[in-house]
């Protein structure tokens, strides 16, 4: 398996292509997302992750439905989320949905928990945004228990109590899907990931490296504090976003109107300023390789690198071309370079197989 998993993550936004003025329909966007996922497997990527949103202009409100469809049409691709809302989803339903998906996908499933980026989503699901962190803590405590104990008694602050409850199906081989905790700014979430020995994904795509470095360092230190290994052995994932053409000038020329008008990028710093201050890289495949290799310098050896590729209203055809370049020209070099100088005691990226093997090793030594 891969020491470092490379893949893509999508927000699932419906965004007007600023160069044509055309806005895809929801159906077109949903179909484009799954086409992109199949392409990810075809070009040799390891992971596809989808966001979860409950408001326009986003389409993926039901991630396990989408991932189940993709699971049936892929062989190797690991299916994940970016992120699953641990605050507003019922942890019982998360336990059930992802265990079901895990069986259907033969273990090719993990998930990234997050708190979401939209305030109003809390009241839509009967919650209070001021309780965001306590919800993330309590709901995950219950999810963690539901996947590890066959019969659960539970009383918490945010959901109706459970008496002798068994969430079904039970996780495949008795091993729950691996959990990443995604956070941008909250030290409490880095602390939560460290406490459980879970993965920590810092979505650094809109942040300067100093901030990412600080958050990852906190997680690594606390991971060691809780006895899961050395700080270097903590499980770290990062984001990134790129646009490539063979010649970097062509990449800049083609991407600029998308950057300038995108809801998430536009009307602030220039493309040049933004690429200097955040991981956004617009240029040749070699520039993307060089930039991505610097991530390791400030967070240490890590396990998962996800790229945002279908951003800013780019048409599907362009995104598929980007994925060809990513899979053929960029990721093979990154795999080789990340492997060189990687100490032997740094864990590989977690998979269902590695988690089963670890459990068996622990059982044998106990």
């Amino acid at each position, binding site marked *: 398996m891969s020491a470092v998993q490379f893949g893509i993550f999508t927000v699932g936004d419906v965004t007007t292509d600023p160069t044509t003025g055309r806005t895809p329909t929801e159906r077109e966007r949903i179909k484009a997302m799954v086409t992109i996922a199949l392409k990810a497997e075809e070009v040799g990527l390891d992971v596809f992750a989808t966001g979860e949103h409950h408001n326009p202009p986003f389409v993926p409100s039901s991630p396990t439905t989408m991932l189940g469809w993709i699971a049936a049409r892929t062989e190797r691709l690991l299916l994940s989320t970016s992120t699953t809302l641990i605050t507003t989803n019922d942890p019982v339903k998360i336990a059930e949905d992802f265990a079901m998906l895990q069986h259907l996908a033969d273990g090719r499933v993990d998930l990234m928990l997050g708190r979401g980026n939209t305030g109003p989503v809390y009241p839509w699901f009967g919650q209070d945004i001021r309780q965001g962190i306590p919800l993330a803590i309590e709901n995950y405590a219950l999810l963690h228990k539901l996947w590890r104990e066959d019969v659960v008694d539970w009383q918490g602050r945010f959901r109706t109590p459970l008496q002798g409850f068994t969430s079904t199906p039970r996780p495949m081989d008795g091993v729950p899907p691996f959990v990443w905790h995604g956070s941008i700014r909250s030290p409490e979430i880095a602390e939560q990931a460290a406490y459980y020995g879970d993965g920590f994904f810092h979505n650094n795509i809109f942040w300067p490296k100093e901030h990412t470095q600080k958050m990852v360092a906190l997680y690594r230190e606390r991971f060691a504090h809780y006895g899961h290994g050395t700080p270097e052995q903590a499980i770290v994932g990062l984001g990134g976003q790129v646009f490539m053409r063979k010649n970097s000038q062509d990449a800049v020329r083609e991407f600029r109107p998308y950057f300038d008008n995108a809801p998430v990028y536009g009307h*602030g710093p220039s493309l040049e300023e933004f690429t200097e201050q955040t991981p956004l890289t617009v240029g040749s495949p070699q520039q993307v390789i060089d930039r991505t290799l610097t991530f390791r310098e400030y967070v240490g050896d890590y396990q998962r690198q996800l790229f945002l590729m279908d951003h800013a209203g780019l048409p599907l055809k362009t995104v598929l071309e980007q994925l060809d370049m990513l899979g053929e020209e960029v990721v093979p070099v990154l795999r080789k370079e990340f492997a060189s100088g990687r100490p032997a005691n740094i864990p590989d990226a977690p998979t269902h197989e590695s988690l089963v093997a670890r459990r068996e090793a622990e059982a044998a030594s106990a």
Partner: protein
Amino acid sequence: MKPIRIVAVSAGLGRPSSTRLLADRLAEATGRELESGERPVETRVVELRDLAGAIADNMVTGFPAPALREVIEEVTEADGLIAVTPIFTASYSGLFKSFFDVIDNAALRGKPVLIAATGGTPRHSLALEHALRPMFSYLRATVAPTAVYAASEDWGGGDTRHDELSARIGRAARELAHLVRTRPETAGADTEAVVPFQEHLASLGLD
């Protein structure tokens, strides 16, 4: 010995700017009040005009560009802050407010602050009391009782008004210097200590 650092922020737009002039005079006067102590004093005056684009970018992106980050760090780590704005449309200027909007709202807790403003007419002087003071109270800064307002006519040479402005600057500087000197040692020490996860669980009754 670590110097006492006083940072004055001016939201003046003109060149030359009377807001900048007031910030300079308050910084000088505060520096003079503090220089008799053991620690050396460093004062710096920052013009937000130079950062106007960066402040707007920060609103859009959520993070400061390097030049703005450096100024935010100077301000949040200073021992005392002098905040000076022109009065526009009956309140602080948008640039002034935007600068404080992009700073973390816990970063100025307990910070000694002197507030000051300039305007074309003395009729807007209470904007200091109904706009600036509540804003810094919200940020839980410690605001000096004297706020300094300078209208165009206060800058005239030699008359009593000019003397009154100088007297107010002197009084405000003494108050800020006193707040800086008597500020507890621990104040401003960044309390980024991690709350252990067991405490989070315990507070939810999950331990």
